[in-house]
C-alpha cells in the first residue's frame, strides 16, 4: 500500500462492525414502532423480542470483531467520553427492560423505546466521533443514522404486519414520512461530503444512495400510497405495506453496510506547505 496524500479505506472495521449498525438500528426502530403501535400480548412479546434479538445480534457481530473478546466487559469503563461505552450501557439497560415489557409489564415498552432511541443515538455519535474517516465525522450523519435506524425498524414492523396484524393507518403514513425524511437527510449529508470526501468514497456512497432513493424511497412510497387506497385490512393492502417495509429495510441496511465497508476513506496525509530547500526563486 502506498501512503501519501491520496486517501485510502480504513482497514479495521468490516462487515461485523457494519452488522452492529445495521442490526442495532433496525432493532431499536422496531421497538420504537412496536411501542407506537400499541401492540399487546403475543404480538408485543414477539416484536420486542425480535428487536432485542436484532440488537443482540449486532453486539454479537462486534464481539466477533474485537481482538480480546474475553475482556469485552471493559467496554463499560469510559462512559464519560466514549460513545461506545454509552452504547454498551444503553444496550445493557435495554435488554432487561425490554424483556420485562415483553413478559411482565407491557407499559414498560415505552421505557424500552426511549432507551432504544438512546441506543441508536449513541451509535450515530460513535461514527461522528471517528475523526479519521471523512464521511463518518460529518455532523449531518448523526441525524441520518438515527432516522435510518428508526425507518428500518418501521420497515420490519410493516414486513411482519402480515403476521401480527397490528398497525393503524396513521402508522403506515408515519412510515412513509420516515422514508421521505431519511432520503432528505441523506441528501443533506451527501452535499456536505462533496468537497472533502475521496472520489472512491463518493462513488460507493452514491451507488448506495441511488438504491436508497429508488428501492428504499420511491417504490415504498408508491406502495404505501396504493396500500392506503386499497381496502383497509385486506390482503392487498397488507402485501403492499409489507413490500414497502421490506424495501425500506433492505435499502437502509445496504446504505449502512456500504458506509462502513466501502465509504470509510480517510483523508490521507496533507502538507499545508512544501519545504523550501536551497536557493530561493
Amino acid at each position, binding site marked *: 500500500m502506498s501512503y501519501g496524500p491520496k486517501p485510502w479505506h480504513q482497514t*479495521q472495521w468490516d462487515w461485523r462492525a457494519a452488522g452492529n449498525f445495521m442490526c442495532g438500528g433496525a432493532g431499536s426502530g422496531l421497538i420504537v414502532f412496536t411501542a407506537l403501535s400499541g401492540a399487546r400480548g403475543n404480538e408485543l412479546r414477539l416484536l420486542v423480542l425480535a428487536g432485542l434479538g436484532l440488537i443482540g445480534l449486532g453486539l454479537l457481530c462486534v464481539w466477533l*470483531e474485537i481482538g480480546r473478546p474475553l475482556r469485552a466487559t471493559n*467496554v463499560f469503563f469510559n462512559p464519560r467520553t*466514549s460513545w*461506545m461505552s454509552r452504547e454498551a450501557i444503553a444496550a445493557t439497560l435495554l435488554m432487561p427492560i425490554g424483556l420485562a415489557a415483553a413478559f411482565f409489564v407491557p407499559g414498560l415498552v415505552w421505557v424500552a423505546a426511549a432507551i432504544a432511541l438512546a441506543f441508536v443515538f449513541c451509535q450515530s455519535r*460513535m461514527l461522528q466521533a471517528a*475523526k*479519521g474517516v471523512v464521511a463518518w465525522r460529518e455532523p449531518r450523519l448523526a441525524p441520518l443514522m438515527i432516522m435510518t435506524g428508526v425507518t428500518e425498524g418501521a420497515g420490519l414492523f410493516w414486513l411482519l404486519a402480515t403476521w401480527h396484524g397490528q398497525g393503524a393507518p396513521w402508522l403506515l403514513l408515519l412510515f412513509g414520512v420516515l422514508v421521505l425524511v431519511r432520503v432528505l437527510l441523506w441528501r443533506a449529508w451527501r452535499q456536505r461530503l462533496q468537497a472533502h470526501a475521496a472520489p472512491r468514497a463518493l462513488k460507493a456512497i452514491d451507488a448506495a444512495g441511488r438504491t436508497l432513493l429508488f428501492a428504499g424511497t420511491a417504490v415504498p412510497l408508491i406502495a404505501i400510497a396504493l396500500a392506503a387506497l386499497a381496502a383497509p385490512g385486506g390482503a392487498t393492502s397488507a402485501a403492499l405495506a409489507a413490500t414497502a417495509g421490506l424495501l425500506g429495510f433492505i435499502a437502509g441496511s445496504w446504505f449502512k453496510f456500504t458506509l462502513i465497508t466501502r465509504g470509510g476513506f480517510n483523508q490521507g496525509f496533507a*502538507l499545508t506547505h512544501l*519545504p523550501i530547500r536551497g536557493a530561493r526563486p
Partner: protein
Amino acid sequence: MTRWAMIADLRRCVGCQTCTAACKVTNGTPPGVQWRRVLDMEFGTYPDVQRVFVPVSCQHCDEPACMDVCPTKATRKRADGIVTIDYDLCIGCAYCAVACPYQQRYKSTRPTFAYGEPSESETYHFDEAQLAVATKCTFCVDRIDEGLARGLKPGVDPVATPACVNSCITNALVFGDLNDPDSNVSQLLAQNQHFRMHEDLGTGPGFFYIWDREAA
C-alpha cells in the same frame, strides 16, 4: 509542566528510512506495523515537481481523538503529553484506529515474523500482550522515563531520547520540551515556519513540521 514534542524538518529529511528501521529494531514491531513511517510524496506535474519525505507517527495530540473514543480507558494522555495504551485494558475494538486522523494505530491479530520463524531479536521483543490490541508509537516513553530517573535530558542525551531521533542521519528529527523556551524544539520552532498535520480537526498534534526559515 513538560510537554514533550517532536519536530520533523522537511527541508532536511532525505527519506533514508533509518528512523523507520530504528523504531522497528527498538520496539520489535511485526511486519506491516510501522509506528514510524517516512512517506515519499510527490507534488506538481512534470517538469515542475517536488519530492518531499514526510516522517509520520503518532502525533501525541493535545486532544487525542483516540483517547476520547476509547471505551476502556486503555488510551490515556500523560501530564507530559505522551499518549499511551494500556495493553491489558484494551479490547482491540479498533475504534481508536478509525478515530485517529493520522492512521497511526495498528492491530496485529496473530504473531508474525519477517522470515516466518522468529529471529533472535524478534523473540526478545515479542510481547503476547500486544497481540489483538491497538498499538502505536510511544515516543519511546520507557527511554524517556528511565533517562529522567537517571537525571538525563530527553532530546539532548541520546539514552533518554526516542530511537528514531537518535538515528536520524540529517538531524531532521528533533525531540524536546515544548514548554521550555530554551529547549531545542522551542528554539527551532521560534526560528522557523512550521505547521501541524490536519490542524483543522482540533487535535493539537505534538508533532511539528518545519518547512522554511522564519521570514526576516
